[in-house]
């Protein structure tokens, strides 16, 4: 039985005790999946599992706090659940987690670019077939084979946790876990001068339309209606569309996620103008790993490092004046 069939069977079995189960179904076309909220066995038959399941299903959980719900997760999504449990934003008894090993999801921007390089339009994809490591897309009467590796999301290339770190039902054989991330991309970026880095962000941020999709998709952005980006009193950011206001909003997002961001990549994935937001968050994660030997979303009973302290900090060398 495939992982998908096993998941469906397990979900159907637990469904009667649950308000619903969150997973992925077919979106508006063959290339786009969409989150679905399964309430009946017929809904469960619509479940999808595979490289197009790009959304982080854990993002929806806090909206249902207090209700008993199920959720289907990939490895990275499971880390968001752990972080939410750690911060007491969820109760462990209220969620039933279904998982299977995950070998990676596609980055639709990459698919779009691959198709464009062949003169094809992503909007015309009629069907997608997945076999092993190959995605075959039927576009405008032709079949285009893409290697999943070539179009995978960056996070999958460095994924350490292919198997969910928390689950009640895990189907299939766990995959081999990969080596720890060495943050090469950051080192590469930081080869530039300070001025060039700033110029880079200013140029990227010029495209930002302040849709706040990056915030809304983030599973750990839980302030909702009280986000300081929209507060007028105090007014941290104005309504102006200056690059500095938009850039400052990203500084806010990154700082508010310091020690909490699990690098699920949703902020970057949903950005309609492809701003590489994850780089900012990865920087903080790298520093936090060095300072506090801590990785968000890996241990339920750990405390986020900025909500704690040690009287003697081993890795903070305060400046001797």
């Amino acid at each position, binding site marked *: 039985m495939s992982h998908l069939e096993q998941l469906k069977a397990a979900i159907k079995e637990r469904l009667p005790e649950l308000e619903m189960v969150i997973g992925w179904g077919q979106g508006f076309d063959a290339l786009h999946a969409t989150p679905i909220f399964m309430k009946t066995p017929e809904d469960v038959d619509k479940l999808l599992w595979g490289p197009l399941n790009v959304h982080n299903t854990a993002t929806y959980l806090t909206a249902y706090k207090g209700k008993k719900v199920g959720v289907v997760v990939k490895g990275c999504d499971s880390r968001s659940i752990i972080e939410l449990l750690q911060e007491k934003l969820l109760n462990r008894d209220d969620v039933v987690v279904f998982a299977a090993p995950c070998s990676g999801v596609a980055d639709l921007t990459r698919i779009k670019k691959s198709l464009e390089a062949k003169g094809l339009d992503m909007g015309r994809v009629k069907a997608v077939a997945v076999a092993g490591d190959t995605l075959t897309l039927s576009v405008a009467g032709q079949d285009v084979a893409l290697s999943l590796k070539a179009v995978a999301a960056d996070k999958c290339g460095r994924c350490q946790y292919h198997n969910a770190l928390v689950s009640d039902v895990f189907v299939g054989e766990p995959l081999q876990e990969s080596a720890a991330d060495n943050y090469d991309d950051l080192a590469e970026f930081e080869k530039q001068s300070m001025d060039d880095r700033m110029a880079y962000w200013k140029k990227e941020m010029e495209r930002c339309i302040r849709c706040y999709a990056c915030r809304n998709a983030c599973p750990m952005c839980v302030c909702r209606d009280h986000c300081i980006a929209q507060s007028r009193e105090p007014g941290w950011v104005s309504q102006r569309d200056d690059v500095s206001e938009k850039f400052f909003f990203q*500084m806010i997002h990154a700082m508010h996620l310091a020690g909490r961001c699990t690098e699920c990549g949703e902020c970057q994935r949903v950005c309609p103008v492809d701003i590489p937001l994850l780089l900012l968050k990865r920087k903080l994660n790298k520093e936090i790993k060095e300072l506090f030997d801590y990785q968000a979303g890996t241990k339920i009973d750990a405390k986020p490092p900025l909500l704690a302290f040690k009287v003697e*900090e081993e890795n903070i060398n305060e400046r001797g004046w």
Partner: protein
Amino acid sequence: MSQELRIVGFLCNWCSYGGADTAGVGRFTQPTDLRVIRVPCSGRIDPLFILKTLVNGADGVLVSGCHPRDCHYAEGNFYARRRLEVVHRFMPILGIDPRRFSYTWVSASEGQRWQHVVTTFTNEIHALGPAPKIAGNPMEKLGALAQAV
């Protein structure tokens, strides 16, 4: 020293503000570039205060609180230390020179130490020169618009 630069200092009410006062009462000479903002505790300092100050055009930011173990609220500065260290290490990816920000501890009796801290930091900021401006000035935009009409 050449032209005065804009350095913003966030000082905790109980120790460093007192320390700066002690330095004043003791008539220790100090550079005049630092603008002091008094906060109840270094633990009150949101790391975003520092980023916002730099984004809005300050040339340097200095934070000073009570020495660890001496906090008026027992542990505010322990939390502050972690946050300040993290925001300091975040700056390089943004393209903000991390040398423009520093944090330290000065107690109310350490007037001399305060003088040393302010002088050293101010000299360092002068060595770096004025910070590149990040924020667009809305008045400039208005000016350009007015010219266009």
